[in-house]
């Protein structure tokens, strides 16, 4: 990973942490390996809210087939980075 993409990834990750903190997190420490559903307990309505924030903030459209394979914060950040790259 070059420094640039590494920086971009970190920026996305921090952005995601900011969004995720507003959901009921059951006092867990958010980390890259935190499982969005199993650890955080996000339900389908929460996920939709999160997606809306992600789409608006990063100006991307997140296709469905992407989310069906996302489990952790890291998975999500990686996909967001990929979508931003494809967009530019």
């Amino acid at each position, binding site marked *: 990973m070059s420094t640039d993409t590494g920086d971009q990834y970190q920026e996305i990750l921090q952005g995601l942490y900011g969004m995720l903190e507003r959901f009921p997190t059951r006092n867990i420490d958010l980390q890259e390996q935190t499982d*969005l559903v199993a650890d955080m307990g996000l339900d*389908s309505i929460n996920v939709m809210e999160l997606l*809306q924030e992600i789409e608006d903030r990063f100006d991307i459209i997140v*296709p469905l*087939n992407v989310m*069906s394979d996302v489990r952790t914060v890291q998975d999500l950040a990686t996909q967001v980075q990929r979508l931003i790259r494809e967009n530019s």
Partner: protein
Amino acid sequence: MQPTGSSHDLGLRPSTFSTLCEALDYAAGGETGVNFYNGRGELYCALSYGELREQSLELARRLLGLGMEKGDRVALVAETTPDFVRFFWACQYAGLVPVPLPATVHIGGHQAFVNQLRKLLENCRAEAAMAPEEWLSFLQEATEGLELRCVGTPDVFDALEPAVGELPGAEPQDTAYIQYTSGSTRFPRGVVIDHATVLANINDMALNGLRLNDQDRFGSWLPFYHDMGLVAFIIMPMATQRSVDFLGTRDFAMRPRQWLELMSRNRATITSAPPFGYDLAAMRVRASDAEKWDLSNWRVACVGAELISPEPLQRFAEALAPAGFNPRSYVACYGMAECSLAISFAPLGEEMAVDCVDAEHLQQAHEARPLDPETAEREGVRVAKYVDCGPLLPTFEVSIRDDDGNPLPERHVGSIHLRGPSVMSGYFEDEASTREVMSPDGWLNTGDVGYLVDGNLVVTGRKKDMIIVHGRNIWPQDLEFLAKQQPGVRFTDAAAFAVTDEHQHETAAIVVQCRERDPARRDELVKNIKGQVRAEFGIECVVELVPPRTLPRTSSGKLARSRARQEFLARRAAETAAPSQANVVNGPGKAAAPPVEENRDRARRLA
């Protein structure tokens, strides 16, 4: 691009046709049609019924080019797209049977969704299957090893060699579609609906439930694989020559304000949603929205499909009052896929009526004795409140029966039996399940429980053991199955049922018998079950681990789910009373409040 208009010179014919093909032939003579909006509120496709008919006829020939025969099933992943609608009507002209498949996958739910699709494809023995581009990979996985004539995106079907000769079309008794709303995901049951059947229900709704006029316009975000989305918003507008505006379900869930923006912009008059839909929208509406919107044309806001709690509806009405939303637009309704769609509507333009009855007497004597809340409070008697779902549509015969099948008088609670021209012919190729619910003389046992007051239907409980979250039916067997898949959990070890959380929302609880003593492994088990349930159903559930032989069984060894539920609630209540002794429950602490019986019983469903 301009949306299709709301009115035209073509005379309103409220579904007085013998087949859906005949209905579309008629609607094609007008100027109304279907309109599709994206998540940013932009119109991306507007088709008049005339254009839709032309495209459907063209596609019908290409479908027949695959060599399919009359009555063969074509599975359609039912994303909210113009293609779904085009395929649905093409199947009618081609004499084929469209089968809408769910288009909803939860985060991390890849495999669960593929399995579900495969079950349905196998159950209906589909000859062909269509999915939009973004769903294709799931469909391909689900059809691996199955012998279908064609699996692909709309483009693939549009490139097929068309058949020559006359299109077979349809007869009134031909199957119009198969609906999988009511079955469990593991043991699906396809509701078979004929042309005459669905048209009878729509005619009844148009004339009596909704009293359609020639200015009405529909708006919806409901999924096309749901009976309300399909029948009330695809078939009904077409069969009554009305325009309809569609917003994708996922787009609604992400940006609920778009629904109201759209209702306002096109001055739509009729929409429908489960209570949670109004709730979601109310949470996101801004004061500035309500000032700029005009919802004064909105005359029917149907509420159905799940437990109706008045609070979110009140919040919604208050937030939208500045936009001219009238709370008398709310119409409580009751229905199910087995009856095409609708069974009863509360009267239009009236406030939602609530029947207050003596809760104790209801439980003991199964009689709904009226009791006004003030008297009840003075005398310290518990009141149960139920929303009145109005008179049955006139084509239905209703009979409330006791457990032995004897008819009961008014205000006596029993299972709701219905007969009439809107009732299904049966479950697809499943005689045993059909016989379970239908008598030879045409009575359908809905499985739901309720009573009649002056001919109005009041529903107090629904299909045995069903769990309803966000308007979706979840079968306890499916949740139990997921628990039993875990290592160390045996086949007889799980019981699932509905409970209400601290916000009075219905959710699921699963009690699992567990021999494990190591706390870390116990936590792991709970976490895994919850994760599986989320992946498959997208809901948060409560999981309780109990020692072996805790779950109650009947004398024949069958799981006694309602008793398991009562015992669970009793344990919860004891735990709340003495929190220091809490050591068995592994559910989230925030859901520890004992569920309230009355609220669960206020259940109302529109399939």
